[in-house]
Each structure stands twice: as C-alpha cells, then as structure tokens.
C-alpha cells in the first residue's frame, strides 16, 4: 500500500492562458499584424493580436477597424467628437481624421499582443 501525496488535495488544473487573456471567447479573434505602422504602440510586424469584438471601443483604445474596405490596427481617439486614428511607426505619429465620405467602422478592440520569442534567434537591435 502506498501513501498518497500530501499535495493531492491541493491539485488544480494548470494555468490556462485562454482564461487569462480572453474575456469573451465567442467574440474574440486572433489576427496577424503585417508591417510596423504601430511599432510605437508596441506592435511588431508578425505579431499575433487578440481582438475582442464584444467590447465597445473608447478613446485611447488600440482597435482593429475597417477603413474603406481595408483592415487597420490603430489607436482610436475622439477629438471634439470627431473620430481620429493614430499610427506610430516608432519615429513619428500620423493622425487621420475620419471624413464624412469614409466608410469606417470599428471591428474590435485589441486586448493582447502575443509574440513568442525563439531563444536561439533573439535580435537585440
């Protein structure tokens, strides 16, 4: 007869990243960043982004939006009730005020950036 582990009463399921990162599983989507338009916001080319469509975007959120049938990741602001998109490539900030003729809608709010590091290929630049 063996003795049970003294820790067995405390055993728990392992930590789950989904549980930590995803508040609305049915309205959350993974997307892939292309380009460095948002480097200043900490998002690099190739990063995985988690986008929550259940959250209503507020000023200063980083959002995924469609502008004239293209998808963009931008910082969303409202300036004197006018919506405005900000991009920052690490050097300068570009502003874009949404015009009346633009087809614009917010698709979702970016809630996490996921970037695995390959320990053999870390570039420090």
């Amino acid at each position, binding site marked *: 007869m063996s003795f049970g582990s003294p820790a067995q009463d405390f055993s728990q399921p392992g930590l789950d990243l989904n549980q930590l990162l995803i508040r609305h599983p049915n309205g959350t*989507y*993974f997307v892939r960043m292309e380009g460095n338009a948002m480097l200043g916001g900490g998002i690099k080319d190739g990063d995985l982004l988690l986008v929550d469509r259940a959250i209503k975007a507020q000023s200063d959120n980083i959002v995924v939006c469609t502008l004239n049938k293209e998808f963009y990741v931008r910082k969303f602001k409202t300036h004197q009730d006018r919506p405005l998109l900000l991009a920052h490539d690490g050097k300068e900030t570009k502003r874009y005020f949404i015009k009346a003729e633009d087809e614009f809608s917010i698709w979702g709010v970016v809630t996490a950036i996921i970037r695995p590091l390959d320990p053999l290929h870390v570039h420090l630049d």
Partner: protein
Amino acid sequence: MYILIDCDNFFVSCERAFQPHLQNRAVVVLSNNDGCVVARSNEAKKLGIAMGSPYFKIAEDLRAQGGLALSSNYELYADMSQRVMNLIKERFPNLEIYSIDEAFAEVKETESIVEEALSLRNTILQQTGISVSIGIAPSKTLCKIAGERAKPLTRDKVCYFHNAEATAKILSEVEVGNVWGIGRNLKPRLNFLGIFTAQDLVRAPAGLIRRHFGINLEKTVMELQGISCLAHEHNGEQQSLMCSRSFEHEVQTFEELRRILGEFTDSACQRLRRQGGEAGGIIVYLSTNRFSKNEEFYQNTSFIGLNRASALTSKFLKAMEQGLREIYREGKHYKRAGITLTEIRKRGAGQRNLFETEADECREQKLLQAVDDLNEKLGAKTIRFGSLSQEIKHFIRREHRSQSYTTSWQELLKVH
C-alpha cells in the same frame, strides 16, 4: 413559448465578417466542387440568382454585375456557427440547434421577451458580424412563419406572434405549401379540398384532416393554432450523420468507391463517438452524373441495419461494404456517393444482443478510444483502419475558397 433564431444569408455573412470588400455587392457561395449556388447575399437574390443554380449558368452574369462567387469554407462556417450558438445559449439555455444557422429556444413568456430578443440580436451582430432574424411564437411551426416575417425587415428583425387576431390575419397571407412540414406533394391535395392558405388549414375540420392526411398534418394544424406539439430536442444532437461528396473525376471501380466510402464512414463514426452516440444502421448512396449525355442516369440507395446499435467503425465498414455491393453496377461512371448513419441515440440506451459479450464490446471500445485520442493528438489520420486509402485522389475542388480565419494559425486575418 418558442423563439427561432435564424442567421441571415449565413455563409455569405461569415465571409463578409472578414472581407469588408464583399459588403454591398452580389456574393454567392458555391457547393462542394463549386457546382451550384448554396448561399446568396441579398444583392445576389435581387439579380434573380436562384438557390441551387449551377455555377456555370450564372457565372458570367454575376461577374458582369460586379458580383463574386466563393467556394464554401466549412471550417469557417462551423466555427462561426459555434460562436453564434454559444451566444444564444448564454441567454436562452434551453436550446435546440436545428441546423448550422438556425436554432429554437424554449422560453418563458415574459413582457420583456422582445427586448431580450433584440438585445441578443445586437450581441450576435456585434461579436460575429452576423445578422439574425428572430421569430417568437407559441409553437415552432408558428415561429418559422414569424421568422420569415422578420427576415425582410431592415432593422430590429424580430417578429412576435402574441395576438390571435393578428396571427390569423398573417396566416391568411401564407400559402399552405410554405408552411413548415407540408411537403410539395401535399399541397395539390390540400388545394383540391379548398385549403389554400395556412389560415384555411387552421379552420379545416379536424376529422377531415385526420381522415385524409393522418396524424402528422393534424399536428401541424395544432401547431398553427398555437398548441405546441413538436418535441423540443434540448441537446442539439443530430439524429443522423451524413457524409457525401460529388467527385471531380468520376469513379468507376468498386474498390475505389469502397475506399472513398470507407473514409466517409470513418469520419462519420468519429463524429458519432465524439457526441457520445451510437447508430442503428447505415445508408449507402450512389449516383451517376444527372447531366451526362452519354450515360443513362443511375442512382440507388441501400440500407443495412445492425443487430445492435453501435459506434464501432469496423461494424459500419462491414455494413457499408455490404450496402455498396447491393447497389454497385459495373461500367457506370459515378459522380456522387455518400453514407448516412441513422437511428442515432445516446450510447448504451438500447438492448444488448444475446450473442455479443460485454467484454468484446469493451475491448473494441477501448481500442477505438485510443485511436481517436492519438489522431486528435498527432493530427487527423495518424492511425487508420486497414481498408481506408492512403491517399484520396478526389480532392474537393475549392478554387475560390477564403481563408480559415478562425481555425488555422497560418490563415489568420491580416491587419496593417
């Protein structure tokens, strides 16, 4: 009280959620092999493109109008359907999933039911980009009609049958052949008796209906009167599991058909086990090309029942082969084949056959569990049954397929 939630132009809506350039233009989704139209945007409906139209017949017209045809992307549709159903279940837990884009919920009748339905509609729209129409009524058959009334609305697509007088007026505008559960062949017979609308049917003497048509139509009549008499399937499990395809290159030999149908049987049995079910029999189906000019059209079906319901692949492979032998005719060019597992129910619900020992069952059950687990861990088709082909030649043709945005790391939506 029942509520029917029905996704508008579901396949097209799924595509549009990830492709804004599809907005406001005629879009159709094509069946396997890009054969015919299985879903249409409202713009495509306005062009007069009918459901089921062969693609080659409408391709040119569609292109000329700035429209677009897409191959079906079932990975995407299945994932989006799951999201929609989960969102519904959060509000209305008593759910029966009726098809990939449609579900009934049994609800308590409350004063706020319409607001609740509208709020659910907005949640689904916001989180998935999919618009739904909602019908609320005392029976499922009435829900279907209410849902149809909600569909053409441009916003707040909810229709609630709460007033008997208003319902009667609507029913008098619904053609009897369009009532849920009334088949094409029933309509002329009803018309002959002077029953043309759903309301005519409601008013028809019960004795007459029973005498001429039997219990099923009588049930439909009661449902139209607002008396619910169709069972609510709470679990959303499927009653039958189907797996069928049309082939890009026609198939002739028995061997090849046996291998293809073997794959289908394997895949259906895996789905069956995943839902914890067992099936009582298998239907095998074959057909040649309906449009062929050189060959007379041949199609046939056979049913093989098992002694005892099972979920074991080996049993269904054996039954499938027997069924195929019955209907296979040499020298024909087969364009389509498929299988359906029938009489599905929860595992262990039925009677045990005298000649089968429990130990036999357990051994095979365990083996299958191991096979399913390994395939799940190491990728589908790591382990397979002896009769299944190493390589299926009949790749499904999907030339215009969109990405699997939600189910493949390699195919995620790209943002800039």
